[in-house]
């Protein structure tokens, strides 16, 4: 094994961007046929390293050897010629085209579509990736779309397959199928570079792991011999905080947010229709909505926040007030708060200061406006309070939202909403892309808000997080929200089935 020439050997890779060193002197060796994990927090430099391997970025320093020969990967086309294929986290597919058309578009030479269709079917049956080449992409689930990208890669008969966070869009059951395919590829001699921050996955799938922290390689490990805790410690460089727990329900049975029979058509062909959504959140509890991305979460958030108004005014009530036809600011006056998934450009205006971003949602609520004029002193005091109480790292309230790191901006937005003391708070992806410390702080803040008697609704793709902090949990699939299950009775498998569209609890349990 040690005598073997490695398939890929990176030495001393360094890449700097203005203001940060994304990769600092990183070594990485991938053997033929191994499944190699690249593990690290968001911002640790995983994506940069992968982009260098795939020829999207060029390293400032360092060498790349492929099969023992030094190579220079100047662009993705060279990478593909070497036998490197990549499945991106975000797919590049045209919704209005069929599977085979999409794959043909990505090929370097023009191909015969019927011939291509045959090869797609061949690969999809060989590797257990069921896919109909004639289907239009917009009719496919996210898991199926990912299969297109994988098949697109396999058509090139790659030697190295790079997968960037492939499971963040899959249900637990789909993850199992993907792993079977990857193991099969590995036995056929294909190396796989598997990028993730999910420790359990890496422990069951990978043979080697390279751990990055803040742009540096921390260590190599055999994940099968490590515990999730020890891997996490290496990844974060600190002991894990004690895991968050759900709030103790103290005001049970007083529904503060009630949604009944909420149906909303998607704005365009590629959105998701909400179908007869019914849910309620009581005072003092956190309700979690699990689901694979693109199953109506954004539509649900828009309907709840008022960014899209509904026809029937009774379908959403807050503290008994019907509000489905109200605009977002009117709902805020009823005590509604909201943290959208997208921070820059939705939750905050990138080029505006934190003070102005404070005003963005607090202008009516916190008496920051008088006769149509901005009360700058009150606004600045409130933004200073957010920055102080939520420990937002920034140069002050005049710093632009875009200059903050993802975690700090999220703390700021969550702080801004919570300090307005909302009776109902809806949060989407509260800790997505946020470092561990900030994530813990945000979760704590949500729990404290609920324990003070507010109703908190958390929409998240991170099932582990929901299992930790919510009192009840349900799933959204294709615009349908399932019945909720008390978290202490729920299992990951059960929720996984609901995320995949199993309609009632009977079929689940």
């Amino acid at each position, binding site marked *: 094994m040690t005598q073997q020439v490695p398939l890929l050997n990176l030495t001393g890779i360094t890449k700097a*961007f203005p203001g940060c*060193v994304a990769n600092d002197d990183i070594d990485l060796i991938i053997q033929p046929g191994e499944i190699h994990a690249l593990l690290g927090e968001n911002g640790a430099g995983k994506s940069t390293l992968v982009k260098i391997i795939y020829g999207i970025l060029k390293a400032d320093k360092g060498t790349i050897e492929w099969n023992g020969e030094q190579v220079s990967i100047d662009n993705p086309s060279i990478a593909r010629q070497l036998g490197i294929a990549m499945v991106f986290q975000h797919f590049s597919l045209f919704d209005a085209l069929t599977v085979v058309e999409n794959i043909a578009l990505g090929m370097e030479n023009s191909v015969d579509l019927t011939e291509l269709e045959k090869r797609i079917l061949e690969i999809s049956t060989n590797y257990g990736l069921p896919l109909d080449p004639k289907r239009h992409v917009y009719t496919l689930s996210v898991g199926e779309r990912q299969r297109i990208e994988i098949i697109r890669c396999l058509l090139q008969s790659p030697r190295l397959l790079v997968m960037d966070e492939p499971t963040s869009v899959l249900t637990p059951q789909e993850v199992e199928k993907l792993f079977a395919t990857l193991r099969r590829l590995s036995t056929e001699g294909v190396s796989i570079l598997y990028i993730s921050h999910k420790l359990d996955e890496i422990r069951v799938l990978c043979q080697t792991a390279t751990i990055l922290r803040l742009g540096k390689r921390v260590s190599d490990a055999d994940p099968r011999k490590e515990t999730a805790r020890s891997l996490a410690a290496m990844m974060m460089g600190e002991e894990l905080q004690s895991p968050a727990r759900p709030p103790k329900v103290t005001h049970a049975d007083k529904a503060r947010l009630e949604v009944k029979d909420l149906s909303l058509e998607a704005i365009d062909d590629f959105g998701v229709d909400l179908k007869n959504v019914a849910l309620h959140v009581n005072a003092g509890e956190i309700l979690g909505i699990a689901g694979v991305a693109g199953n109506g979460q954004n539509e649900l958030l828009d309907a709840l*926040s008022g960014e899209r108004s509904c026809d029937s005014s009774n379908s959403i009530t807050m503290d008994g007030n019907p509000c489905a036809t109200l*605009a977002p600011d009117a709902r805020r006056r009823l005590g509604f708060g*909201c943290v959208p998934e997208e921070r820059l450009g939705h939750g905050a*205006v*990138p080029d505006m200061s934190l003070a102005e971003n404070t005003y963005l949602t607090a202008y009516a609520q916190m008496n920051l406006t008088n006769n*149509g004029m*901005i009360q700058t002193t009150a606004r600045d005091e409130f933004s200073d309070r957010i920055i102080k109480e939520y420990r937002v790292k920034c140069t002050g309230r005049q710093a632009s939202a875009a200059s903050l790191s993802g975690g700090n901006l999220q703390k700021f937005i969550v702080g801004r909403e919570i300090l307005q003391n909302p009776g109902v708070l809806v949060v989407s992806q509260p800790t997505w892309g946020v470092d561990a410390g900030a994530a813990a702080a945000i979760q704590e803040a949500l729990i404290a808000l609920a324990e003070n008697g507010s109703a908190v609704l958390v929409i998240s793709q991170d099932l582990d997080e929901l299992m930790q902090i919510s009192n009840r949990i349900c799933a959204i699939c294709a615009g349908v929200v399932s019945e909720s299950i008390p978290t202490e009775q729920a299992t990951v498998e059960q929720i996984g089935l609901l995320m995949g569209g199993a309609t009632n609890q009977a079929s689940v349990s």
Partner: protein
Amino acid sequence: MIRLERRSELSRAMTYLSPVLALVLTLLAGIALFSAMGVSPSAALYTFFVEPVTTVYGLTELGVKATPLILIGVALSIGFRCNVWNIGAEGQLTLGAIFGSAVALYFYEVEGFWLLPLMLVAGIIGGMAWAAIPALLRTRFNSSEILTSLMLTYVATLLLSYLVHGPFRDPDGYNFPESRIFHDSAILPIIFDGSRLHLGFALALLVVVAGWILISRSLIGFQLRVMGNAPAAGNYAGFSQKAMIWLSLMLGGGAAGLAGVIEVSGPIGQLLPQISPGYGFTAIIVAFVGRLHPVGVLFAGLLMALSYLGGENAQINLNLPLAVTGVFQGMLLFLLLACDVLIHYRIRFGKRSAIS
């Protein structure tokens, strides 16, 4: 090797230095231009940029020319902040002049302190009505206001032409395509004796202050800026994009209409087939050179007014074509937009460095 490197934060210094840099480059380009035309560059630049303001009368003329530019520039800059690209201010100005003139001609030989205010209001309504068409088309059918507002400018010019050749023509005017000369009650008072500087200039200064307060201190100005910057964040905060589009176009149309009626009731004194040397278009340059800020617009308006005066002066003294004015204005905008790249990027010489 020279290359551009993205800055991690916008450069505030460059936001203000960029117009200055653009002005310097425009002057350099002007020197090359005049040399090529066989005119001494120093004499030409003196005639163009200095001589017009060496007399008190010249300074008051500067105010007269700057008035419509500032009025429209302030309103356009507010709309541009909201990403509403009203480039048809020239047409809205024309409609303002037509509406104001209609009032003046209807009450011909009627005296009254109320006549001028009525004309000004009519002018504002005229400009707004013309701007309402692109606003409606944009909010109802999502058609680009850039195209619709621009095309309506040509419609407005033809409408004006029809009116001065027909219904509004002076009955005693020997068939010249001109209206009657307005009665004294319909003429804006002069605020500086012995000059043409009229009350409109004071109004323009008021609009600068009002625009400043609106954009930087009011909730409405905040809404406009948020909508221009991040529409999704605006929806999230509960602001209405349609309302902001309407507001932007109404402000622009109203201000342009006011500028139009001020022109006919001020320096011109009657309705003519041509009432503006392109103030509505030049105001777009004014808005950008003024950094979309009302106070900046004040200075940019004066600068552009100077280019009009200088152009006339150069035509009289040096026999240069009037088109030089347009060339200068165009060069300034072109070079300004080029210099604005430096707000987001910095210039680096030599090879790319490994670690910053």
